[in-house]
């Protein structure tokens, strides 16, 4: 059966099963699996298929240390549900996480790049776990079914946020019901997620800091309406204020942010993830993200290199000069990737500064003797 046909058939099945399943919905118990004849089992079946598609998509990051770390935070926050949650690290630029009712937790690499410490990650994960424990998707599904045309639920869930390159991933996340959580459910997930984060000893103020950083990025974006995270998490201003209020109410005991454990597993991936973000070519957003990462104070060499890359690709007035400066600054840290020398050489060459270009290309080949483009760089050197 084709995907649209399957979705329709499942929808009919869910409608039929749902007639016998009214009344209050209790929290899901640890280890609980819905009985086969229920509408919830139908929802799980849809999610199981989405999970299979995700596994085949080639976008799942198979790094045991990274996955084990995120899973560890999930289990610390919610030990009773640890065995019910399956964590997937999804290679995708953009800040996003989603929780499906069958226990599938998607954490996008764009999120792992941006969170500055474990406390911020714990807030997001705690929030998503609330959606699971409180059966928000099932509640939403029954509300929609009882109030309007139930096909809307699936149409909405399957629509994705536009037809961008991440549409298949957005649809997978949407199948988890995340697109259709109500504001009340989001508020509840914020409050309970916040409580579980602070109960686990994480600094509560980090929740608002993260939220404000995402707002700043959005304001700088060339295309804020296409923001996947904000399209699924409404009420941004209100949430920033309510998170600040919640943080002010917690007791005065000492909390931790735990930055090092996060960086130990994410830093090895930062080069690739920064490259993914740059490929979105949303330069305003990228620059704000770089500012935040640089302010946090890690790996300035790599961040300056990507600042240079951003200016080089944008190519607006003064961008060549800014790129040149950023590459030079990156190299001065002693921790820039070898490609910074190559990029510097290409810029000098374009400006007719052939001697400087030659020096930079030669340094690149010294720093990376096995460079895959060695033959091309040697060809450039012969042309200079």
């Amino acid at each position, binding site marked *: 059966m084709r995907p649209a046909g399957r979705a329709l058939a499942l929808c009919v099945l869910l409608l039929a099963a749902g007639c016998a399943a009214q009344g209050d919905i209790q929290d899901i118990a640890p280890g609980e699996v819905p009985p086969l004849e229920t509408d919830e089992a139908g929802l799980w079946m849809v999610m199981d298929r989405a999970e299979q*598609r995700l596994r*085949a*998509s*080639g*976008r799942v990051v198979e790094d045991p240390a990274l996955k084990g770390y995120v899973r560890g935070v999930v289990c610390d926050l919610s030990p009773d549900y640890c065995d019910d949650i399956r964590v997937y690290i999804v*290679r995708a630029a953009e800040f996003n996480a989603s929780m499906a009712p069958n226990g599938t937790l998607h954490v996008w690499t764009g999120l792992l790049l941006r969170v500055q410490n474990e406390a911020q990650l714990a807030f997001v994960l705690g929030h998503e776990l609330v959606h699971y424990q409180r059966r928000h998707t099932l509640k939403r599904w029954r509300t929609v079914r009882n109030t309007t045309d139930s096909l809307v639920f699936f149409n909405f869930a399957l629509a994705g946020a*536009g*037809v*961008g*390159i991440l549409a*298949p991933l957005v649809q997978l996340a949407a199948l988890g019901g995340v697109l259709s959580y109500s504001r009340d459910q989001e508020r509840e997930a914020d409050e309970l997620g916040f409580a579980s984060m602070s109960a686990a000893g994480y600094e509560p103020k980090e929740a608002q800091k993260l939220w404000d950083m995402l707002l700043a990025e959005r304001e700088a974006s*060339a*295309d804020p309406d*296409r923001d996947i995270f904000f399209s699924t998490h409404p009420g941004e201003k209100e949430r920033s204020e309510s998170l600040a209020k919640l943080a002010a109410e917690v007791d005065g005991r000492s909390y931790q942010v735990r930055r090092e454990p996060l960086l130990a597993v994410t830093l090895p991936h930062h080069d690739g993830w920064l490259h993914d973000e740059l*490929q*979105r*070519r*949303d330069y305003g957003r990228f620059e704000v993200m770089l500012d935040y990462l640089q302010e946090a104070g890690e790996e300035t060499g790599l961040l300056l290199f990507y600042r240079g890359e951003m200016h080089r690709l944008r*190519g607006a007035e003064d961008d060549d000069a800014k790129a040149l400066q950023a590459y030079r600054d990156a190299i001065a840290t002693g921790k820039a990737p070898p490609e910074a020398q*190559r990029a510097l050489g*290409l810029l000098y*060459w*374009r400006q007719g500064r052939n001697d400087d270009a030659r020096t930079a290309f030669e340094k690149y080949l010294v720093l990376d003797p096995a460079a*895959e*483009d060695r*033959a*091309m760089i040697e*060809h*450039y050197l012969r042309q200079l």
Partner: protein
Amino acid sequence: MRRYVVPLIVCLALFGCAQFTLVEAKRQEIGNAYSVAAQRTWNRLKEGNVELWTADGPGLESLRFYAGLKDGERLFEPRPGSNDEETLPKYRSGMTVTEVMEFVVDSLTRSGASQVKGHELRPSAFGAADGFRFELSFASATGLRYEGTAIGAVVENRLHLIIYSGTELYYFPKYREDVERIFASIQLA
């Protein structure tokens, strides 16, 4: 009668819009910019500024010919309703060869491919022109792995480019030798 409706619609969808024509096994002109010698027959489809050849189907393998891409032109057409207009990379005259490979890699990524890597960039003759070669690897949105190889040259600020890609298993290797002969047969107009 009703049972024929769906297959008919599928047939129309597959063949009605896509106007494939036969590429005979002889020298073929590509956009008045260069020519190549086909050693076997292919199916040709013209879409915007690209001429596509395939033997078994574009989802399995294809050769994409670009002839004289100008400043501001793209490898792929922006999709309606998307933000491709702002984010799909454009060719800029004056790009170095390193930047041309980056342009191809980023274009493939923005068109929906994942894990796109360009590698082994090296000098290569493009007919009589001083050109370049590089290899590609990427995955489709559903995770199918592809390999690719590209050859090109910048002539008078315009980019000539041929990209061959196919599924890593079976189809890419199947026509690799035919493609190498095509690359070796390039003659500038």
